[in-house]
C-alpha cells in the first residue's frame, strides 16, 4: 500500500460524498445525507493515513520531512483541513446539507493534485528546514479551510436569500427547502469565520516569527505577506460589519465570498502570478 493509492481512495470517497450530498438535495432522503457524511469521514480517515504514510515514505528515502513542502503536498493538506472543518461543523451543528457546498472544494483540490501535479517527494531546500514550517503551514491552512467552509455557506445563503425574495412570503420548495434558514446560514458563516480568523492570525504570526528567525525581518511586504494581510483586513472588516445592522446577511455573505477569493489568490495566485519567497507553486 502506497500513500498515492490511499490518496486516490480518499479522492474517490469525496466524489461519492459529493454525489450523495447532491442526491440528498434532490430526494431529501435522510439516509442519502448520512451516506454523504459517512463517505466524507471515511475519506478523511484514509486521507489522514495517507498523509502519515507519505511522511514515513519521505524518511524511508532519506529526506524525511513533513509532507507540507510543495504545491502538491499543500493542496492535499488543504483538502484535508477543509474536510476536518466541515466534519466539526457537521458534528456540532448537524446541518448536513452544508456538505454539498463544502466537500466539492476538497474534491476539487484532491482531483487537481492527483491528476495534474507531480507527486514526487522532493528534498527540502535549506530555507524550509525548520519546525516553523509545520506550525506555519498547519495554522494557515486550517484558517484557509474555515474560510472555504464559510464561502460554501455564503453561497448557500445567497441562493436561499435570492429564492426567498423571488418567492415572496410563500414557502420556497425544491432543493432550497433543504437549506437551513438564512438566519442559521448567516450565523454559521460567522461561526466559520471566527474559527478561521484567529487561525489566520496565528498563521501570519508564525510566518513572521519564522521569517525573523531565518532572515532577521518579521515583515518585509513580500507579496505573500501583503496578501495574507489583505485577507486579514477583509475578514476584520467582516467581523466589524456584523456589529452594524446594515451589514449582516447578504452583504456579509458577499464579503465572505470576496474574502475566500482573496484567500485563494493569496494561496495560489501569488505563487503563479507574482514573485516572492513562497515561489514553489510557480514551478520556479
Amino acid at each position: 500500500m502506497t500513500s498515492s493509492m490511499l490518496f486516490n481512495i480518499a479522492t474517490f470517497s469525496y466524489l461519492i460524498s459529493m454525489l450523495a450530498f447532491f442526491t440528498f438535495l434532490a430526494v431529501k432522503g435522510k439516509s442519502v445525507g448520512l451516506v454523504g457524511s459517512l463517505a466524507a469521514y471515511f475519506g478523511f480517515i484514509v486521507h489522514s493515513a495517507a498523509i502519515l504514510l507519505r511522511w514515513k515514505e519521505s524518511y524511508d528515502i532519506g529526506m524525511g520531512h513533513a509532507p507540507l513542502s510543495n504545491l502538491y503536498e499543500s493542496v492535499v493538506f488543504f483538502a484535508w483541513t477543509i474536510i476536518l472543518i466541515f466534519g466539526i461543523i457537521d458534528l456540532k451543528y448537524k446541518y448536513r446539507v452544508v456538505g454539498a457546498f463544502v466537500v466539492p472544494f476538497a474534491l476539487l483540490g484532491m482531483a487537481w493534485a492527483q491528476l495534474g501535479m507531480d507527486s514526487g517527494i522532493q528534498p527540502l531546500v535549506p530555507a524550509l528546514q525548520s519546525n516553523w514550517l509545520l506550525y506555519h503551514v498547519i495554522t494557515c491552512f486550517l484558517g484557509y479551510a474555515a474560510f472555504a467552509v464559510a464561502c460554501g455557506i455564503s453561497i448557500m445563503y445567497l441562493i436561499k436569500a435570492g429564492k426567498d425574495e423571488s418567492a415572496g412570503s410563500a414557502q420556497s420548495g425544491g432543493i432550497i427547502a433543504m437549506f437551513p434558514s438564512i438566519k442559521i446560514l448567516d450565523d454559521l458563516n460567522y461561526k466559520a469565520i471566527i474559527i478561521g480568523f484567529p487561525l489566520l492570525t496565528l498563521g501570519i504570526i508564525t510566518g513572521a516569527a519564522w521569517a525573523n528567525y531565518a532572515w532577521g525581518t518579521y515583515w518585509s511586504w513580500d507579496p505573500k505577506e501583503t496578501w495574507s494581510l489583505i485577507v486579514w483586513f477583509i475578514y476584520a472588516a467582516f467581523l466589524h460589519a456584523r456589529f452594524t445592522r446594515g451589514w449582516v446577511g447578504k452583504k456579509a455573505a458577499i464579503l465572505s465570498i470576496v474574502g475566500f477569493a482573496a484567500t485563494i489568490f493569496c494561496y495560489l495566485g501569488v505563487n503563479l502570478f507574482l514573485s516572492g519567497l513562497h515561489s514553489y507553486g510557480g514551478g520556479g
Partner: protein
Amino acid sequence: MTTSNRGFLETLWDFFCSLKLAISLLILLAATSIIGTIIPQGPPPPEYLQTISEGKHKFYQALGFFDMYHSWWFILLLYLFTVNIVACSIKRLPRVWKAISEPTLVMDDKFEKTLSLTHDFKMNGDAASLRDKMVAFLKGEFAAPVVTERDGEFHLFAQKTPYSRLGVYVVHLSIIVIFIGALIGSFFGYKAYVEIAEGTSTSVVHNRADMKPIDLGFTVRCDKFTVSYYDTGAPKEFKSLLTVIDGGKVVFDKRPVIVNDPLTYKGITFYQASYRPAEGAGLYFFTVRERKGGAPAKISIQQGERKVLSDGSTMQVLEVAQEVSKFIPQFQGPAARIEVTPKGGGAPQVFIVFQNYPEFDAQRGGDLIFSYDGSEEKMFTGLQVAKDPGVWVVWAGCFLMVAGCCMAFFMSHRRIWIRVRKGEVTLGGSANKNQPGFQLAFDALVDKLKQQ
C-alpha cells in the same frame, strides 16, 4: 462661536469613533495594498519601465507606487487606522468596564422583562432558607453569587468570565503594541549585510538602506564555509563556521551557522544568507608522474599561478568545474582544464583531467601523466546582520492579539440572577455571546433546580 466649534470637534470625534470609518479603512487598506504586489517595489528595472508609458511612470512616481508601503498616503491610512482604533476603544471602554465592575445585582420586574431567559418556580420555605439553598446551588452549579437584600426579597447575582468582554479591546491594544514595536525597530535597529572570506574577519557591516558602514564593536571571523548537495543536485545545507571575538576574548568558537539557525551576540544576529567563490583565491591539487616511472609528485597550485614541473615544463590552471557532466555528459565529478607549456617555450598543450578518472590522462600519450586531486576553493560567506530591539514588543503584541481573539470569539460573559420571595424563586440569565449555547446551559440549570 463656541457652540459651532464644539459642534465641529464633536463631529470630528464621532467621525473617528465610527464603525463605518473602521470598515472603510479596513477595506481601503486591503484594496490599496494590492498595488504594491503588482507594481515592482524599489527602483524599477529598465525592462519594466519599457512596458509602461512615460505618463504612467510619472503618475506612479508621484504617488510613490514604487515604495508603496512607505508612501505618505499609505502611512496616513495607517495613522487614521490607529486613531480610529484608539478613539473607538476610548468611546466604548467605559460602558463595557461599567458592565464588568458594576453589574446589575438586583433583578426587579422591569429588568426581568429585558431578559430573554427567565423561569419561575413555586418553592416551599421562607425567604431566608430559600436564599441559603439558592446560594449553595449557584455555588455548586455555576459561580459564587453576590447577595443583596431589598424590601424583604433576596437577589442573587453570579457571573462567569466577565473579562471576556475586554477581548476586542485587547486585540485593539495589540495592534498599537505591534506598531510601537515596529517603530522601535525602525528607529533603534538596522538591517545590514556583510561578506566575509574564509579565514578573514571583520568588525564592520554595511547598512542595507544607505550602505553606510556600522561598527559592530566586536569581530566576526569566518573559519570555513561549506555547501552540501542532495543527489538530485539541489542544495542541502549552507554552513559557515563563525568565531566571535570581543575584546580579545573568543566568545563563540567555530559556531556553525546555517539557514534557519542564526547566531546572536549582543542583540545583533547573523543569518546565513548567501555565498560566492572568492575568485583567484582557490588552491588546486594535482598528482604528476613520469611515464617512464618514478615516484609521483603532489603539487598544489593557485589560479593564475605558473608552476615549474620536474621536466622543466610549466603548468597553469585555466578553469575548474565541480561537476563536469554539465559540459561533458560522459564524465562525472570535478575536473580541471590545464595548460602545459614545454621547457623553453613552444606550443602549449591544453587538456582536461578528471578527479574520478585518474588514469584517463595516460591515453594522451604525453611524457607526464596528470591527475586532478580536487580543490580547496576559498569562499565568501554572505551574512544578513540584523539588530531589532523592538522585536520582543512585536511578539508581545502578537501574543496579546491571539489571546484577545480567543477572549473575543470563544468566551462569553454569562450572568445568572435569582430572586427569592417567600414560596417563589425566579431565575434569569443572559450571555453576551453564543445565546443558543447559553440557552442550553440555562435550561439544564432549570432542570437541576426542579429536581431539588
